[in-house]
């Protein structure tokens, strides 16, 4: 080292490592954007078992297998359990307005299924509990001419749609419980929809109204974001995610 003369002759001597680091990061970033969804799925497989047994909760800080909370309005809309009402109306014989206790008094269905977001993340094995949407529709009495549902959120902005055939599936519930607790406000509480076989944007949060209509009216993201109206996991939105289990 002593035989080497010090780097005294101006700032441009030496290897341009800085430039290479910047260009390298840009290249890695581009590769990450293109391949990120595949890598994330692999990481989830590795991290999920760790996060499930980690007593410190620190591993939850790592990006990956957890809920990201989206709202389309400012903050979370809040309705207390006592204030909450769910309207079932439109082309039905008996329009209903249900309170939370009234929903909870009906026969409950439990689903332990993944929650798959169209932006790529998936939370595995979430325990959902609620009332079958098909039971509520049957109780309200569908009139001829009704072919679809328009769903509204009490955030005042978000809407969704389902065909009646989709709404009658046995894995579509009006959920009031998640992972053995009440549904928290950031997850759409007190009541949200959970459409197991479809991407998360179909599972409208803060559900306030189920209206039976005569044709499919595209919902918020179908209008705003060009998302698929038929949002089957793995065969819509140009995605090929494995089916939810």
């Amino acid at each position, binding site marked *: 080292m002593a035989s080497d003369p010090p780097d005294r002759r101006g700032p441009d001597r030496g290897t341009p490592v800085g430039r290479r680091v910047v260009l390298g990061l840009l290249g890695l970033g581009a590769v990450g954007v293109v391949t990120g969804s595949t890598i994330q799925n692999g990481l989830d497989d590795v991290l999920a078992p760790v996060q499930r047994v980690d007593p410190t909760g620190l591993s939850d800080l790592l990006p990956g297998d957890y809920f990201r909370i989206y709202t389309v309005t400012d903050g979370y809309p809040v309705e207390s359990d006592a204030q909450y009402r769910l309207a079932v109306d439109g082309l039905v014989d008996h329009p209903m307005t249900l309170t939370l206790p009234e929903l909870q008094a009906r026969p409950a269905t439990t689903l332990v299924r993944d929650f798959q977001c169209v932006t790529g*993340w998936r939370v595995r094995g979430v325990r959902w509990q609620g009332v079958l949407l098909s039971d509520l529709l049957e109780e309200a009495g569908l009139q001829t001419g009704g072919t679809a549902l328009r769903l509204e959120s009490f955030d005042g902005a978000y809407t969704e749609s389902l065909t009646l055939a989709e709404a009658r599936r046995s894995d579509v519930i009006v959920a009031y419980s998640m992972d053995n607790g009440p549904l928290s406000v950031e997850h759409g509480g007190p009541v949200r929809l959970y459409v197991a076989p479809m991407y998360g944007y179909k599972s409208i949060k803060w559900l306030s109204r189920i209206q039976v209509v005569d044709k499919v009216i595209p919902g918020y993201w179908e209008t705003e974001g060009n998302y698929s109206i038929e949002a089957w996991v793995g065969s819509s939105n140009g995605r090929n995610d494995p089916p939810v289990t």
Partner: protein
Amino acid sequence: MVATTRPSPDRRTTGWLARFDRVERAVHWVNAALFGVLILTGSVLYLQPLDQLVGRRALVENIHVWCGVALPVPVLLALAGPWGRRLRLDVRRFNRFSREDRVWIRTAFREREERVATLAQLEMGKFNAGQKLNAAWTAGVGLVMLGTGAIMRWYHPWPLAWRTGSTFVHDWLAAAIGLVVIGHIGMAVRDPAALRAIFTGRIRRSWAEKHAPAWLAGDDGPAAEEA
């Protein structure tokens, strides 16, 4: 003055040297403020307990996005004009790795005694290899965060898979940036003389004799910059 281990070059006689000019300090602190806001608002968007505490998600998101968009502006403005001469010179310094820098990096992973002994013999320039890497890292990840953030925010033109990939890159880089910023502040606090220089612009000649002798002696050193 404290005793020094090297003969003082006789270019200047004062005890203080100019290390950062006004423009460089302004850019550093505007950047620091933007990074601070980005980290805070990013944490709110990202960590659920904070989100519940703060609420107002749309506002927080807007602040985050527009601070991100603003991030390159101060650097580019400072580099663009005649006022950026000193900053441009330092950017060239950041870019180049000398042989000393490579030794410095290898030494960083050694035992403390060996490190101190090796570093004492190294003729380091104005910035050490760690500072150079931090500068390059910050520039690189800044651009990547800006690009991925833009894809996430203005998602219409991009394939959905890119939005997924951008979220992936943005999330992991955010975690890495958090660690590097903590490291950066930690290193600065451990060297109060160098830390003071980013507030006042000045540093003691004795510091440069010990930590940056090649800068002190070089053709582009403080003497040349004063000229």
